[in-house]
């Protein structure tokens, strides 16, 4: 492309935007959206009705849930972000994308990664860290594709014809820069096999890094890019000016600076040092106003277009999306208050909170954008306004059912967990009693999901017919844009000037997100050096480690926590509060985020081996009302002893105190320990010969080790 000669030569020129790439990403959004919703529906059904696990390893809840979250966030969310970014940026900067090759590399690379996830997650290749489950080859692929995206994007900025960057672009830049940082730092891991690795961080460090990542995946994957999209598509669709430029500036910078600190609110009342918890809480509270700044700017931009709210389904979707954004970002800070969190954490309230954001804010904004883009890209009108309206109402009803049932479920279960009678004992000591109470609500949630998906099917049909009926064979239209000109000397002052200096803008942004990251994470990296040396923590035996990896593979962590919080009802139910020492060799940490089943931090020694064996093969034999999936295949799959030397040597390299002998005898030691457990089972039931050397033996070893590895107990003990 020719550089516009300084000022006086060409005043305008004709270019073509690359809309093909936008179309591709739209197709991908719709395709993966359907997949993500269907998988979500299956997961919802499995909790209501356990036989829906179908006793197929690759379809059990523990493997399906990560597939659902990854598909919803990165496949559905990711593709619409890319569609919107490529579409709006070209127009905001009056230039074609920097490189069609890079755009296409980005598109196909991303889809391949999704396919990789679709295959590996159900097979159980998982990192065991939420929303970062993909194993190391895919982690590398994500980094490569993301960097390609970044190069393409900053290239586009470099060749722009509009000097000042519009607020949507600030948010896109924030997304690209921060996601790179989050992904790279959280994914530092050492491979032990083609699809198996251990993170370099352990225990509390891993917890902090993971939730710094996890929380900011919400922030910089589901919030900032969508705010950017909002800033383009809302004023476009409503044909109104942005309510307040000053508000844009203030809420943008406060949002990106504050968000990055809030991660520890996922670890409140845990063993994480108090100061980090306090930071997580107060920054979450301070995040309320910056978030609402975005909502205010969005809703007040729609002001004056209120009449369209009745007539134009696109405006309806956008307005409701922004409203849900406002609700979620109010609820978030609320849930970050330690006392509120003590009730809500580990319950379905959090699941409701997430879906208010994802279904309401991300989902409805996406639908509005699709309905806005499809007729424009294909040069036609949407086939049916009525179907769009139906989609809106069915979808909204679906979200409300989801949200309300999960609130009710979370608060009910949270209150039951914490109820202590006058005699100082738990009122509902039996965990499964608290599960039975909420199962009906799981059906309501499922119904909500069905409605949401039904609405989406209307979108698919509507879009399909629209495209099928669109005029064919028309060439893309050229647009007239001002020639590039470098001699704009008056680029303004203050923030206005910064908007014209893309490099400095990006650097400042990077510093803004780096500050909180460093202050929170770096001190914990050395934390284990400062722990009192009074207690010695034993590393896992090779067999226990094998069991632990199976635990991660099966996704037990999506239902079970391993963190007894510093709360009296946690201590009464599960035993002394968990300490930092107990997880100091845990790679990855498994503190968990939801208790669909009871905490397992001290399950070691609680039951005999035979109990676990029978419970794993069929939980209903032990707990008739259990909703835990059955794992009969664990008693059939053989343990892979051969990989253990490699696993231990990686662990040793990472600083776990194994000696050379431990490493070189890892397989033998594991076999010996397995034989002891097996013999014990056999004496009780001679028909159990087939469980010899099977994975369930390793799981039993791991279960029995939980809470038994260190003498360092929490400050409080239960009455036991």
């Amino acid at each position, binding site marked *: 492309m020719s550089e516009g000669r300084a000022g006086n030569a060409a005043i305008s020129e004709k270019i073509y935007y690359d809309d093909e790439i936008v179309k591709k990403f739209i197709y991908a959004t719709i395709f993966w959206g359907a997949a993500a919703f269907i998988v979500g529906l299956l997961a919802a059904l499995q909790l209501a009705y356990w036989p829906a696990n179908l006793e197929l390893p690759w379809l059990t809840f523990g493997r399906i849930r990560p597939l659902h979250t990854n598909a919803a966030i990165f496949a559905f969310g990711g593709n619409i972000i890319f569609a919107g970014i490529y579409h709006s940026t070209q127009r905001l900067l009056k230039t074609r994308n920097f490189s069609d090759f890079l755009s296409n590399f980005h598109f196909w690379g991303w889809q391949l990664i999704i396919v990789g996830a679709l295959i590996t997650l159900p097979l159980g290749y998982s990192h065991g860290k939420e929303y970062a489950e993909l194993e190391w080859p895919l982690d590398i692929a994500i980094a490569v594709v993301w960097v390609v995206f970044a190069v393409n994007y900053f290239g586009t900025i470099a060749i722009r014809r509009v000097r000042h960057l519009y607020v949507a672009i600030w948010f896109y830049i924030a997304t690209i820069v921060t996601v790179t940082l989050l992904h790279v730092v959280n994914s530092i891991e050492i491979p032990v096999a083609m699809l198996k690795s251990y993170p370099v961080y352990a225990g509390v460090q891993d917890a902090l890094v993971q939730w710094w990542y996890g929380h900011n995946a919400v922030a910089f994957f589901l919030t900032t890019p969508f705010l950017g999209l909002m800033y383009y598509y809302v*004023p476009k669709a409503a044909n109104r000016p*942005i309510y307040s430029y000053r508000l844009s500036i203030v809420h943008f910078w406060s949002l990106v600076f504050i968000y990055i600190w809030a991660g520890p609110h996922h670890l409140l009342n845990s063993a994480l040092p108090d100061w980090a918890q*306090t930071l997580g809480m107060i920054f979450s509270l301070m995040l309320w106003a910056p978030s609402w700044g975005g909502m205010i700017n969005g809703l007040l931009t729609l002001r004056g277009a209120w009449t369209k709210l009745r007539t134009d389904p696109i405006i309806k979707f956008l307005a409701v999306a922004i409203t849900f954004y406002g609700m979620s970002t109010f609820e978030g800070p609320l849930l970050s208050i330690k006392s509120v969190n003590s009730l809500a954490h580990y319950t379905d309230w959090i699941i409701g909170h997430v879906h208010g954001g994802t279904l309401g804010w991300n989902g409805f904004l996406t639908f509005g954008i699709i309905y806005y883009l499809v007729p424009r890209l294909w040069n036609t009108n949407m086939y049916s306004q009525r179907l769009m309206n139906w989609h809106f109402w069915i979808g909204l009803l679906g979200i409300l059912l989801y949200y309300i049932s999960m609130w009710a479920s979370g608060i009910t279960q949270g209150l039951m967990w914490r109820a*202590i009678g*006058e005699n100082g004992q738990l009122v509902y000591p039996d965990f499964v009693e608290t599960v039975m109470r909420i199962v009906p609500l799981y059906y309501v949630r499922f119904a909500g999901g069905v409605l949401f998906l039904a609405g989406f099917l209307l979108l698919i049909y509507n879009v399909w017919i629209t495209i099928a009926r669109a005029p064919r064979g028309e060439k893309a239209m050229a647009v007239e844009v001002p020639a590039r000109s470098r001699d704009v000397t008056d680029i303004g002052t203050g923030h206005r000037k910064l908007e014209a200096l893309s490099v400095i803008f990006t650097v400042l942004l990077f510093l803004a997100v780096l500050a909180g990251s460093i202050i929170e994470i770096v001190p914990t990296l050395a934390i284990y050096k400062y722990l009192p040396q009074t207690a010695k923590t034993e590393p896992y035996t090779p067999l226990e480690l094998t069991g632990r990896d199976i635990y991660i593979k099966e996704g037990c962590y999506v239902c079970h926590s391993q963190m007894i919080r*510093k709360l*009296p009802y946690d201590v009464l139910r599960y035993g002394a509060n968990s300490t930092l020492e107990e997880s100091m060799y845990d790679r990855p940490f498994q503190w968990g985020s939801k208790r669909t089943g009871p905490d397992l931090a001290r399950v070691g020694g609680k039951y005999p081996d035979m109990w676990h064996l029978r419970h794993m093969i069929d939980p209903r034999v032990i707990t008739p009302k259990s909703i835990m999936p059955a794992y009969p295949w664990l008693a059939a799959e053989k343990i892979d002893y051969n990989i253990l030397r490699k696993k231990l040597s990686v662990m040793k390299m990472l600083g776990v105190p194994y000696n050379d002998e431990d490493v070189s005898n890892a397989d033998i030691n594991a076999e010996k320990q397995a034989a002891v457990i097996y013999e014990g089972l056999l004496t009780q039931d001679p028909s159990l010969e087939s469980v010899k050397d099977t994975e369930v033996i390793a799981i039993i070893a791991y279960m029995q080790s939980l809470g038994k590895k260190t003498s360092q107990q929490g*400050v409080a003990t239960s009455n*036991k």
Partner: protein
Amino acid sequence: MPDKEKLIEDHEYDGIRELDNPLPGWWLMTFYITVIFAVIYFGYYQLFGGPTLDEELSAEMSSIKAEQEKTEEAGELKTQEDYLALVSNPDAIAKGKAEFMTKCMPCHGDKGQGIIGPNLTDDYWIQGDGSIPAILKVMNEGVPDKGMPPWKGVIPADLEEDVAAYVYSIHGTNPPGAKAPQGQMIERR
């Protein structure tokens, strides 16, 4: 849009204009209040000696323990004779059985015949003498090393005697598939 709102000149991006509205006052106020709260909260808990989570937990646990002890003291020690009325009370036995079916059945079997845990219907006892106080004691304290969990606090206090009475009542029922005897032979008085 109301008249007093002003479009900013030069701010035009693909047809999108921007207004020069000030930050809403109530919004700014919210922001300030959260910041001030944050500073005070951090100061109190992290700098000026507010209680740590450990301290709060210890305090709460000791008041709970006090309550537990109070209720334990209140219940005076009972003897086998005091309990016998329960064994002939069908209501108590029914309640005890229901609880047994959810809590004890996985290990002792639906008829007390024994699976992982020992047969509870025979004359052989590993722990105690098979009297109701003895059953209560094993039940509450468990034998953790041998795989019998402690049930204190897990089984509601008003049900534990019913469960023990139920276990006592199934003695001699000779259920099918009973586990081989374990422990000492102790004949019932």
